């Protein structure tokens, strides 16, 4: 049966929405504020062992010998795992592009500091760690590949000798007449940029409890899994099991932001269980392990980019050369971060031609994983910085520069040069709104007064697109196959009219269980608290992916509405019999099955379901006595990519404009954010409070990336960051309280008109903050081109600019 999912809130069968679109309280929260939510480290299974991992202290080394005898003899130790076991039992990890995956635990050599080399299962974590220290590993150091800029030079050491190169990917995409527009440009503005590695750092690290069933050759993994089904596929490959013999049981997660899932930790705990006779093995990653080797390190990039611009400020071309350091493997799908910018390559602007020249290399840094935004945040930092450089070069106000280039409301749906289609938007309205909130004219006057006093005050204006509802086709350019990402929901109503929905993902913080309850409560006219939302493990779940790519809210809405429609059709048939009316005349509205135009001819939904499940004598012939169904949604209209990577990929395009006021202390180089304004348009807001939380959370992570956070490595690829003393996650003292406005341009294609909204602000904030700093520094002729804009970097730039100005001949 084909269904049409409504693209507007008016499509819900209620005359008075009570929940959808309202700032409702979350159904998740009672368990969370009482400490009752079952995060993975709370799980205790009978006879459970605890895992500790010995990790490589060297960035690149051959493993000459491992002696585990002392560890094995240690009281309380049940099993010890080394590369020899992996070689015997496992495959290397699957990667995109193919062929850049190591084993889950080092075999033969180690490729980064923190790579697992051996592991122990023992009666407690304390004893497991004691035993880990008793494993003797002899290493032979190998030459290190530390600098991605020379990683492909002849004579460089190789991470994967069998590949003969450290170059994972080398592709150039040209969309439109790029040479023509650059040749015809009145001005060309170019600059180089460096985005340093940042990462997800959820407050809960990864953890799992794995149990290998030696009799049935089955594996059960409880854990902090963002994408359970996907995890099962990956483990099936590495552990050489059938995927349907692996049950992934996802627990509520203490944040994710991309890399939550721990493929290596899962494989290691699973293999230890196998060696320990099938006893369950718990592995809880500690923070130091997370910072050295966990999922979430992202975007280690060197850019060389240029804009072609006409004298009136019209941007006609955008060229980007990217050198991306993926680190020691492609196991974490970090390469996808290189592909995703195609979904919004030219941002909010009508730029007719673009070029993307990409080199992805492997070095002895830790492997890259996804992080919120998945690639565009650095890309937007480059584009928005160039827009400011161009505005300054042309003598235009930075807000005006953007206004002149926006895609206009009447141009939607709009296909960008890199192939994706933006569904809807009104970018100028967002700019107008945020300028009004900021009182932009007065802000500029304030700035002029401050500058006259010698203060470094700057204003940043940044406009970005947030591609929403990811699709696999967006990542074809790095070797990911497929079009469409199915997400399912099984909705059932019992004989009492109580509604339950089963989904294939667990809590991570974005409030999708609440959303499910909102939808079902309004659809069937019940209370939100009465809707039961149940997590189904991979043995039981409908097709699913889980949170990621600003997709799940939209996708689960589509799946639930699809199921609601199918059940409703059935209830209408039953009600038609009970109310003695033609099927076409019966509708569901406000929890009643009623005959259109006949006041009083109606029955409560619960009564109709009751009849369906308990009065087979009344049912139409052939009707199954079942008020449950599974519906699976995938984004409509997606296309296979062409040779240049062009396709309709992300279904929705939300947009935002941020205005930020900063002051830089010339003596210390420290940046203080004084004011922050946001106008954000992500279409229909299904729970506005949740959307605001997503935006503000993205601001915090954006501020972190712009000012504080960096995975620092030295010249030998030794990580210098291993605690929260070195990796600076912003606190309440660094994150600005922002003033936010909502614009609503519904998506014409997505369920209820909602657009993906989980990643928006991290797309915009780094660009906005750096643009503001550069606006502050502009009078000195200094410019930040590297993240984070740490006090030391900014102070050095100020000092260099002042020294240079002393030497300028008059």
């Amino acid at each position, binding site marked *: 049966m084909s269904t049409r999912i409504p693209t507007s809130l008016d499509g819900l069968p209620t005359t008075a929405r009570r929940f959808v679109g309202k700032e409702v309280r979350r159904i998740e929260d009672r368990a969370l504020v*009482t*400490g009752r939510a079952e995060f993975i480290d709370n799980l205790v299974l009978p006879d459970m062992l605890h895992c500790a991992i010995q990790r490589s202290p060297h960035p690149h080394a051959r493993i000459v010998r491992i002696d585990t005898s002392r560890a094995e003899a240690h009281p309380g130790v049940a099993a010890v795992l080394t590369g020899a076991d992996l070689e015997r039992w496992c495959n290397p990890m699957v990667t995109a592009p193919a062929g850049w995956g190591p084993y889950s635990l080092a075999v033969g050599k180690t490729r980064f500091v923190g790579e697992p080399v051996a592991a122990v299962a023992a009666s407690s974590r304390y004893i497991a760690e004691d035993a880990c220290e008793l494993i003797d590993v002899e290493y032979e150091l190998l030459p290190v590949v530390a600098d991605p800029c020379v990683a492909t030079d002849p004579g460089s050491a190789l991470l994967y000798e069998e590949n003969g190169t450290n170059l994972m990917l080398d592709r150039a995409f040209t969309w439109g007449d790029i040479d023509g527009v650059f040749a015809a440009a009145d001005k060309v503005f170019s600059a180089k940029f460096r985005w340093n590695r940042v990462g997800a750092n959820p407050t*809960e690290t990864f953890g799992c409890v794995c149990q290998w069933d030696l009799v049935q050759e089955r594996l059960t993994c409880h854990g902090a899994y963002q994408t359970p089904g996907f995890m099962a596929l990956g483990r099936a490959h590495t552990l050489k099991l059938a995927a349907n013999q692996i049950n992934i049981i996802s627990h509520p997660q203490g944040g994710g932001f991309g890399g939550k899932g721990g493929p290596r930790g899962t494989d290691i705990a699973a293999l230890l269980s196998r060696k320990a006779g099938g006893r369950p093995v718990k592995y809880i990653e500690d*923070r130091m392990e997370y910072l050295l080797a966990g999922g979430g390190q992202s975007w280690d990039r060197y850019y060389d980019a240029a804009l072609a611009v006409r004298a009136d400020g019209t941007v006609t071309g955008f060229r980007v050369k990217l050198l991306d350091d993926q680190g020691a493997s492609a196991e974490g799908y970090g390469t996808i971060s290189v592909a995703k910018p195609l979904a919004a390559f030219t941002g909010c602007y009508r730029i007719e031609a673009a070029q993307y020249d990409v080199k992805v290399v492997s070095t002895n840094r830790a492997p890259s994983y996804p992080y919120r935004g998945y690639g565009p945040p650095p890309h937007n930092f480059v584009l928005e910085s160039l827009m400011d450089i161009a505005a300054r070069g042309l003598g235009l106000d930075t807000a005006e520069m953007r206004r002149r280039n926006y895609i206009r409301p009447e141009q939607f749906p709009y296909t960008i040069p890199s192939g994706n289609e933006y569904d809807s938007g009104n970018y100028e309205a967002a700019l107008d709104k945020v300028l009004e909130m900021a009182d932009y004219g007065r802000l500029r006057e304030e700035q002029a007064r401050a500058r006259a006093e010698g203060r470094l005050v700057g204003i940043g204006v940044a406009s970005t697109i947030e591609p929403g509802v990811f699709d696999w086709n967006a990542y074809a350019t790095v070797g990911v196959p497929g079009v469409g990402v199915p997400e399912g929901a099984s909705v059932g109503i019992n004989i009492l009219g109580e509604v339950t929905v089963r989904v294939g993902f667990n809590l991570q913080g974005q409030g999708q269980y609440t959303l499910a309850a909102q939808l079902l409560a309004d659809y069937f006219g019940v209370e939100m608290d009465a809707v039961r939302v149940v997590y189904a493990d991979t043995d039981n779940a409908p097709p699913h992916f889980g949170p990621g790519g600003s997709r799940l809210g939209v996708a689960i809405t589509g799946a639930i509405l699809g199921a609601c429609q199918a059940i409703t059709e059935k209830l209408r048939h039953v009600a038609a019999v009970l109310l003695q009316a033609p099927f076409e005349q019966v509708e569901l509205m406000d929890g009643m099955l009623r005959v259109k135009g006949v006041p009083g001819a109606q029955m409560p939904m619960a009564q109709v379901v009751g009849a369906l499940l308990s009065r087979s004598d009344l049912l139409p012939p052939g009707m199954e006595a079942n008020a449950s169904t599974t519906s699976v949604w995938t984004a409509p209209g997606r296309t296979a990519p062409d040779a240049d990577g062009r396709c309709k990929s992300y279904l929705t395009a939300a947009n935002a404009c941020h205005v930020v006021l900063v002051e830089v202390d010339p003596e210390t180089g420290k940046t203080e954010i004084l004011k922050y304004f946001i106008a954000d348009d992500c279409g229909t807001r299904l729970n506005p409070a949740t959307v605001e*939380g997503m*935006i*503000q*959370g993205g601001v915090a992570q954006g501020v972190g990336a712009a000012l504080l956070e960096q995975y620092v490595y030295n010249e030998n690829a030794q990580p210098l960051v291993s605690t*929260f003393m070195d990796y600076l996650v912003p606190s309440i003292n660094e994150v600005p309280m922002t003033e936010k406005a909502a614009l609503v341009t519904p998506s014409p294609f997505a369920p209820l008109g909602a657009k993906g909204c989980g990643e928006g602000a991290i797309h915009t904030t780094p660009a906005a903050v750096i643009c503001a700093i550069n606006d502050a520094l502009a009078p000195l002729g200094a410019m930040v081109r590297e993240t984070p804009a740490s006090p030391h970097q900014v102070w050095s730039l100020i000092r260099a600019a002042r020294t240079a100005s002393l030497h300028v001949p008059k």
Partner: protein
Amino acid sequence: MTQQHKVRLSVNGRAYEREVEPRTTLVDFLRHELGLTGTHVGCEHGVCGACTIIKDGKAVRSCLMLAVQADGAELQTVEGLHGDNGLHPIQEAFIEKHGLQCGFCTPGFLMTTVELLGDHPDPSDEDIREALGGNLCRCTGYQSIMESVRLAGAKLRAGAAVQAD
């Protein structure tokens, strides 16, 4: 085997006595010996504040203490906030103002807020920043937490006023 030490303490008004290794951290003791898993571990080096509990009236990081150091102490954890009359006003305020997303850091924020509002029933924003500056939240961006703490203060003051009447 390492020598075991006896630890006697009270948590949320209930007395416990256990034999532990001296190296057992207080948070591991609470979570794994006593089964009080509402207190979470985020960094194990005293920066993130997820493990914050109240010890003898003061907010402390239970990952930075050994269980043996808490011998004789009176502890309060998140499990003690939810009483017979339902949620604590601070918990209610966090729900109302969406002061959490994933909720993993939340027990630490709640216990820090218990101390803050005990010391400053009507805190300024500066007081709130000062008190919560040692708790990391990776989800919310803190704005809704700020609002939650303000509301919690108002709820507690209103409750105190009712009791005084």
